[in-house]
């Protein structure tokens, strides 16, 4: 239970921290795609007997890098490139899982997350990712603010904006690996987007949105875990619905105005 609680706190803090970038930079689709695209990596992990989260890390980062490469090379929009990679990687993952009838895998656990059964290795992986991501966010904070707010201006200044974007996507892929263990492939999206969207309505400045999103995310994940434990509900959906509840309450009396 303690492991599950630690896992819940990590997902509640880390996904919303990156989620602040997701909602302000329209990265929701790529976030969702990355979550689905790591499935083959996780399947491979099962085959060779390594913790799936470990194999999911390089898979996610590779796909994040591929999105840009594919859209550049083929002259397609990023959305289209994401659509192609997302669907094919997910299909590959499902294919690999179906071929492995000998290995005992609960596909539902992969898709829905199984935080109550998270292994010690899973927790260590999540802790290591947390360290790396927080360091990355801290060191590159100003660069990421600049390229997010004014991509053209930052490029003219002589900044390698492409590198900054790759770093951001790599960090996103990393937190998705934390999120998948708790909420599963499908609902990791909820932890990325919903707490950050709620925070976006509540506070003004970007750094405040990050911190507020992490607080709301933790509240949602811990409450969801508690509900799932006591009422025997699936944890991922419980966390998601608590986060949604918070969003609905806030959105009913706050809106963000643009000029």
């Amino acid at each position, binding site marked *: 239970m303690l492991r599950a609680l630690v896992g819940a706190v990590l997902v509640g803090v880390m996904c919303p921290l990156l989620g602040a970038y997701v909602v302000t930079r329209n990265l929701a689709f790529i976030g969702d795609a990355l979550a689905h695209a790591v499935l083959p990596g996780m399947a491979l992990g099962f085959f060779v007997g390594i913790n799936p989260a470990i194999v999911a890390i390089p898979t996610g980062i590779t796909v994040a890098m591929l999105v840009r490469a594919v859209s550049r090379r083929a002259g397609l929009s990023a959305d289209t490139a994401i659509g192609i990679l997302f669907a094919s990687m997910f299909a590959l993952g499902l294919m690999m899982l179906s071929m492995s009838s000998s290995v005992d895998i609960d596909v539902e656990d992969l898709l829905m997350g199984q935080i109550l059964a998270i292994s010690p290795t899973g927790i260590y992986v999540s802790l290591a990712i947390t360290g790396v991501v927080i360091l990355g966010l801290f060191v590159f904070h100003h660069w990421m*603010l600049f390229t997010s707010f004014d991509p053209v201006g930052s490029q*003219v200044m002589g900044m390698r904006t492409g590198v900054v974007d790759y770093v951001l996507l790599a960090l996103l892929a990393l937190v998705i690996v934390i999120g998948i263990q708790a909420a599963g492939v499908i609902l990791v999206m909820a932890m990325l987007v919903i707490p950050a969207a709620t925070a976006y309505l509540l506070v003004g400045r970007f750094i405040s949105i990050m911190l507020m999103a992490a607080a709301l995310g933790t509240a949602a994940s811990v409450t969801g875990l508690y509900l799932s434990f006591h009422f025997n509900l699936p944890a991922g959906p419980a966390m998601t619905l608590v986060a949604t509840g918070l969003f609905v309450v806030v959105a009913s009396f706050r809106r963000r105005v643009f000029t």
Partner: protein
Amino acid sequence: MNPLVDLPNATHDASMSLQDVTVELDGYMALTNVTFNVDAGTLMGVVGPNGAGKSTLFNTIAGLLPVHQGSVTLNRVDLHRGALAYVPQRDSVNWRFPVNVSDVVLMGRCCRLGWFRRPGKKDRELVRECLCRVGLWDYRSSLMTELSGGQRQRVFVARALAQEASVLLLDEAFSGVDAGAQEILVEVLQALRDEGRIVLLSTHDLNNLSRRFDQVLCLNRHVCACGAPSQVITPAVMKELYGVQFSMDGEG
């Protein structure tokens, strides 16, 4: 109220020269044989109708677009150290991304920091000086979306100052900026010009502020005229530029 505070600063002596610059965009010639020179300490207005290639010109100078033919030469400018600053058009900025005034000016220090250093006390002190210079220190904690068009432009100018830029490019700097705020902006830019910086400002509508530029470049895919406002803003040039006869109010 004079917001301009003396800021000890290195003198700037960059110069810029465009020779026969031709730029092709999606199969058509956006700029043809553009040639002009700008010396240090010049405030130049780039005027021309919509679609005349003003943004293309700025993007080319900024190195965002390849030059098809000809050359752009920036002398005594270290591009990798942020010597060139670009004040973006309103719609190239992600306004959904919530940053406040100090955040934006601090961005100007990124190029001086290198990859793994974060801004320190000196950088923040410089941000304060730059914001004082454009008269926006009192707005340092305001979100960018809370400011008027003219104030936003001045924040971007403060960012260029923090960047220690020698060349400033302001694309459509007057759009969405009311007359009084345009006046303030031009005053700020004149002070920067006096330090030896090159300031290029594009605008599609010609107004009485055009006479406050040192040089006016009339652009319509090619250079129609370039020189002091009194020489350039003539009925003949205006007809070539906008294709209609202009009444030249206040013209002697």
